[in-house]
């Protein structure tokens, strides 16, 4: 079922992509070219739709089952990544990274505080010293 849903999703993407490709604005000169800005995207979109359609009519491959708890874990991690990205604009990048590492390790079931804190402190510190101080890469605030 999940496999079919994935294929239907891909089919929808390919149709939307092809329709968008057909509406790429072009001037009169470009439009006359044999291969213009629309041509290859349209070919790719149609080919993907056709390939996915063929796969839809084939037998689904056997999928490995996933425990529901694991999906929840993954959803939590995706949420943490989103929170990290939202936070780096006002929180310092390295501080945000340290918090992300700490909370992700805890969320995954790690309860040993020493390795967790070592990871959360050492990686951002090495990153800061190596990249900002050592290589002189400028990071905007």
């Amino acid at each position, binding site marked *: 079922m*999940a496999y079919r849903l*994935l294929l239907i999703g*891909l089919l929808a993407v390919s149709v939307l*992509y092809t329709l*968008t*490709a057909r509406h*790429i*604005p*072009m*001037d009169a000169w*470009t439009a006359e*070219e044999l*291969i*213009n*800005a629309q041509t*290859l*995207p349209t070919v*790719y*979109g149609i*080919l*993907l739709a056709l*390939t*996915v359609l*063929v*796969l839809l009519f*084939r037998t689904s*491959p056997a*999928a*490995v089952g996933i425990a529901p708890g*694991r*999906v929840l*874990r*993954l959803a939590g*991690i*995706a949420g943490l*990544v*989103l929170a*990290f*990205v*939202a936070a*780096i*604009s006002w929180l310092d*990048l390295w501080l945000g*990274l340290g918090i*992300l*590492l700490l909370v*992700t*390790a805890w969320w*995954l*079931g*790690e309860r040993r505080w020493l*390795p*967790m804190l070592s*990871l959360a402190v050492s*990686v951002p510190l090495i*990153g800061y010293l190596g*990249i900002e101080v050592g*290589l002189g*890469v400028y*990071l905007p605030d």
Partner: protein
Amino acid sequence: MLEGIITGFSTAFTLANVGWVLFGCLAGTLIGMLPGLGPITAIALMIPVSYSLDPAGGLIMMAGVYYGAVFGGSTSAILINAPGVASTVATSFDGYPMARDGQAGRALAIAAYASFAGGTLGAVALMLFAGYLAALALAFQSPEYTLLLLLALSSVVVFASSSARLPSLVTLLIGLMLGTIGTDQLAGIPRFTFDRLDLADGLNFVLVVMATFALAEAFRMVLQDDPPVLPDVSAKQLRLSLNRTRRLAPVVGRSSAIGFITGVLPGAGATLASFFAYDVEKRVGDGSREAGVAAPESANNAASTGSFVPLLTLGIPGSGTTAVLLGVMLSYGLQPGPRLLSEQPEIFWGVIASMYLGNLFLLALNLPLIPLLARLLRIRSTLLIPLIIGFSLIGVYLTTLNGFDLYLMLGLALLALALRWFAFPLAPLLLGFILSGLLEENARRTLFLAEGGFEMLLDRPAFLVLAILLVLVWLVPLWQRFRARQD
């Protein structure tokens, strides 16, 4: 030529220049290991250092940085499936599974030996054939490139197993589609940007590779049961037995030749070379994982050396990295091209001679580091997963400095996870993404050159040879079906 070679060795083997090769290799390897920092970034970061050196010393150091960074990228590709640069993507296909099976030390050692052999063979070839190969490179123009790219894209689908062909085509097309996002290079028209400035330059390569390989891999580890703790890397894993060396020697020879020739062609570079070599090895070789690591590693190092041919002999940068190197040469007041060979032979041959030394240093530096690096895999998944997630997010953020790219990365990683869960191979996606822009640009240039009539293409021998090869490749599935029916 012999006189030039002697001049080159006497320039490269001064104490100061030996020191700069060593420094360049070390700096390149360390920077190449960091996510998102490939050879271009490594060379760019070293430009201020090169200004304090004389032209020969500066260029020798830069060459060391270049192949050091190419090699460094393979370490993260093998250990955590995070190839920081496109040319090490093919290394991760077999290198990472080897690492997961407790053979990280062996995979890294094979990569080190293969890189050394590929780089050294490349340097020998560069010394012998530089002049002839420059002429060959000139014969390859847009029509030939278009076919070469179509050949590479077709091979990845056609030579997959019969059950994996359609899934490979799906991911290849997704990659090609992702490559069309951004401003159209020839007409300057925005495509699939939805009026967002963040998408105007297209998707960043590091973003796509980190999302589909590193972040998706971390997510897969979250969904699966914890893998068993891997044993320490013993010194035994770093030694190659005589049997193994005998088995891998032809692989390295073939792949170095493929790598060097591909590297000579402007625009093709180490990425295409590594994919080609990997693909060839899977078809004609024994198909072992060890060969799957040795082939792309020797090819990408030989290609890095080969890319110096158009740069030094014609003054044409064949890749982004050699374009930065061209800038460094121009800043020294050097004009690469045929006159460089006659007017400043010590620089031309000195850079080439330093490559022997650089490859030797790379091997000597990296072998002792392997047990230390492989220990990374013994970390529990509760700590390794956050490390990979943090590593990939920071790698992309440092490359683009754009938070929007991290949202895109998360979405792409979830798509890659879903595709991978149902056995869709992800390598074609990456190949399609990398080659999408090149294919479109060369196809459109071919039409400009043809000016509406295709007769001129028939006068190009290289084009005709590639066209025949392409047709033969497309016929392979039909031929296999025919054979299967007869059997």
